């Protein structure tokens, strides 16, 4: 019997608003415990929530970017449960009438075709605090500490639809997560840094017979701190559920925790123990009504999304699929690329230099493109010099390193250090003669018809000319000199 997985994510994204969802406290990371709290976010008696409009805007942004219907009327609900990191004893969330419903996300599937993944809803809620367990054993038995800095930070919950185009493979799962994160970053509502807890995921998984419309019992997996762990957890869970089904038994509907050292999932609570959250509309917050103008405004403010960009790049710049995908991964890079274009004479070379040389520098220095010294016009100027043969690729690389650090003008560097390619053949010829004299053995090998040592001589001449000679010209000169 062949089984296929039905995978549904519940992703939580912390929004990068300036202040929390229902009070004026700043949204921060890594601050000292309980330094960004107030009577509202610590649930002091008598306090009331006041909705942060920016967070609502961000939620609608996400909804539009993920092709959702935006409900013209929405409301908040209380999700009731007891936990020390939840100061009010309920979380303000959404239940009936979330802001966004019925969307989809197109992802890459096998052989590059794209498939839509159904998104059931996107809603806004407040984050909970953090429990800090004492490091000393004696204490940890008696106490935990609570940090409420995170309490009330706006959180998006993005829920996949298990009925409408659910994810059906690990590959799809991975590309869904990556694409989702990419879009969230594109529309600039969260940095989505997983290590900072800005992007967290639970996942529901069940197996069903291939092409069956009937769903099997699902398990929910929690506690996965990276994309890799999510995939590992799914991998394990698919194996586990397959074995159960093959043995003729039934998968228990339950919540499981992922153990990242053992790479297995372990039962956390059964269906019977599932809490009853007693959702009901929050009477402290009015219904929210959107007018068309509000939604249109957000629609118009959305940036071009990755898919649109890829299509346009292929059409407009005639770039390869690979180059396009690489260039559009990060919005900042895409923007940089396009900012270079008005000044650039060779777009393919521009793309190549960004993907190979600039990426290398960015990765090595872990500096963002905005914080580096590279400015579009200057970078494009460099590409122009290279593609016109004014400077060699070799020289181009060193100039790039310099402007990356200092931000100095390419033309200034090239002139100051007289780095332009040597156009006078006789200069190269004299250097070549010197090199041949110093490398008689190699020269005779070439004369005998060996091709390999040619590169060595080219390299030597490059050295003599401080990289300023065109290697192709040198090669031609060597062959002419030694073979004719």
């Amino acid at each position, binding site marked *: 019997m062949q089984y296929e997985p039905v995978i549904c994510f519940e992703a939580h994204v912390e929004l990068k608003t300036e202040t929390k969802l229902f009070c004026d406290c700043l949204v921060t990371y890594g601050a000292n415990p309980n330094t960004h709290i107030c*009577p509202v976010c*610590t*649930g*002091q*008696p*008598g*306090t*009331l*929530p*006041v*909705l942060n409009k920016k967070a609502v805007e961000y939620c609608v942004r996400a909804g539009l970017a993920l092709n959702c219907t935006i409900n013209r009327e929405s409301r908040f609900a*209380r999700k*009731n449960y*007891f936990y*020390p990191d939840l*100061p*009010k*004893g*309920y979380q303000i969330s959404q239940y009936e009438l979330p802001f966004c419903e019925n969307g989809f996300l197109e992802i890459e599937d096998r052989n590059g075709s794209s498939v839509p993944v159904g998104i059931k809803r996107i809603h806004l809620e407040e984050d909970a605090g953090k429990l800090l367990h004492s490091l000393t054993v004696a204490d940890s038995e008696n106490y*935990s500490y*609570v940090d409420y800095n995170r309490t009330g930070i706006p959180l998006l919950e993005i829920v996949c639809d298990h009925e409408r185009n659910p994810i059906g493979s690990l590959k799809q799962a991975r590309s869904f997560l990556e694409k989702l994160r990419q879009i969230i970053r594109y529309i600039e509502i969260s940095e989505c840094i997983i290590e900072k807890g800005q992007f967290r995921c639970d996942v529901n998984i069940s197996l069903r017979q291939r092409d069956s419309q009937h769903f099997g019992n699902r398990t929910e997996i929690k506690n996965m701190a990276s994309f890799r762990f999510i995939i590992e957890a799914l991998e394990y869970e698919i194996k586990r559920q397959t074995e159960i089904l093959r043995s003729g038994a039934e998968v228990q509907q339950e919540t499981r925790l992922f153990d990242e050292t053992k790479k297995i999932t372990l039962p956390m609570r059964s269906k019977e123990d599932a809490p*009853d959250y*007693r*959702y*009901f509309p929050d*009477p*402290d*917050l*009015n219904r929210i009504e959107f007018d068309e103008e509000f939604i249109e405004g957000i629609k118009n403010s959305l940036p071009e999304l990755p898919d649109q960009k890829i299509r346009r790049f292929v059409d407009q710049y005639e770039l390869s699929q690979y180059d396009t995908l690489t260039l559009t991964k990060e919005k900042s890079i895409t923007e940089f690329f396009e900012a270079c274009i008005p000044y650039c004479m060779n777009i393919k070379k521009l793309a190549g230099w960004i993907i190979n040389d600039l990426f290398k520098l960015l990765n090595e220095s872990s500096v963002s493109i905005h914080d580096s010294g590279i400015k579009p016009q200057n970078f494009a100027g460099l590409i122009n010099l290279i593609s016109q043969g004014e400077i060699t690729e070799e020289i181009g690389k060193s100039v790039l390193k310099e402007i990356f650090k200092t931000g100095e003008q390419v033309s200034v560097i090239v002139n100051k250090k007289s780095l332009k390619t040597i156009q006078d053949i006789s200069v190269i010829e004299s250097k070549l003669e010197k090199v041949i004299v110093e490398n008689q053995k190699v020269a005779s090998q070439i004369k005998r018809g060996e091709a390999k040592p040619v590169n060595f001589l080219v390299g030597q001449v490059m050295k003599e000319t401080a990289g300023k000679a065109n290697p192709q010209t040198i090669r031609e000169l060597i062959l002419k000199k030694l073979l004719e």
Partner: protein
Amino acid sequence: MELCDFTASELSVLLRKREISSKEITESVFERIDEKEQQINAYITLIRDKAIKRAEFVDKKFSKNSKISPLNGIPIAIKDNLCTEGITTTCGSKILENFVPTYDATAGKKVFQDGSVLIGKTNLDEFGMGSSTETGAFGPTRNPLNIDYVAGGSSGGSAAAVACGEAILALGTDTGGSIRMPAAYCGVVGIKPTYGRVSRYGLISYASSLDQIGAIGRTVEDCAILLNSICGFDKYDTTSVNIENPNYLDSLKKDIKGLKIGLPKEYFVEGLDPGINDKILNAIKLYEQNGAEVIDISLPHTRYAVSAYYLIATAEASSNLARYDGVKYGFRATENIFNSIEMYKETRNHGFGKEVKRRIMLGTYVLSAGYYDAYYLKAQKVRTLIKNDFDNAFEVVDIIIAPVTPTLPFKLGEKLADPLQMYLMDVYTVSLNMAGLPGMSLNCSKIDGFPVAFQIIGKAFDEETVLRAGYAYETFIQNFDKDRQ
């Protein structure tokens, strides 16, 4: 008659003439407290030293500026479910017995800004859950008119304090009748404004969609003075409504000729004390004699109000009271606690009283999976029907007159053992909270030494007409008394 027996409007005139000082009034109030409080137990917390200092400060700053609020220098009591910065706010509960808020409730802040002098925090049913001010952790409040009887609730402390001169004015809160009922039992005036008229910020929630802060005074005019101070939109309470606030004193004395008064037939039925029934009909006759028009109306869904109210109120309460878990503030049980679940259980078991626990359990049940539609949702539908009843009635009439309570004050402990009997005391008051309408309780007569009150119900945000009708009634009575002399 001592200074503490004067009304706020009388005192403000004397203060403005500098014939008396705020300190003298405040001292007079504390003398009365010394004399009566031990019996009445209107207060949970008294702040004598702070109050005297505050009065001295107000006296020093006093100017003859005509714009100064009539509240300036007037001693006021605040119900102990309204947060006061630096002053213990208990909600009448052991679970908050040591809770000191870090901020003032907006309504409190406003009356302080207008120069009033806080005397203390008044007693209440625990978290406002009760109709007799007996369920709190700090003993019952007794009715100043007869200390064997209850003061009504849940703002019983506020009403009793105003009734016996332990305060000139008081803030109360009303979720299902908690201002109007004790005002009726103690023989003072109490008004619950329209939902959204006064910010709830700093009011410790019982049932968020029903709670509203209001005023208790000895006259309609005094209530108008206090309302002028506390009404208005507050950005910290997004359920408060951003509309213009009239000056309630401006329209207070206008004529009521032609005023259309509705009498709901469902309110004058079996179950209403016949004595109360007669006295209210007498009051209505007075209105008629003075040019008002009386119209019979129907509020057909009245009989479902109490049931629906107790579903909605307890549902919201079960959630609102979840924050009292021993983690952050208030009482925490520490004996034999080995994990957080036990801490919650023991803290809440020992911190809450019987009635609060009853309502939390009821509300939890109401919201539970499988019951939500049958109870909570259905109750919300009833709520809409009740609101529609009033909307229809107010197409024909300007105000509605109704009883406040079905019976006269009862003895302490008399109904404590029978919660259902107690809940039925709210039969005439809860509908207004469900519909969000303003209502005022006003004294109209006496039976066996106990006050009889009637209720004036107004359209949403039309407190002006309610107050005007109330003031008119007071004037009829004064003229009537004068005629007799």
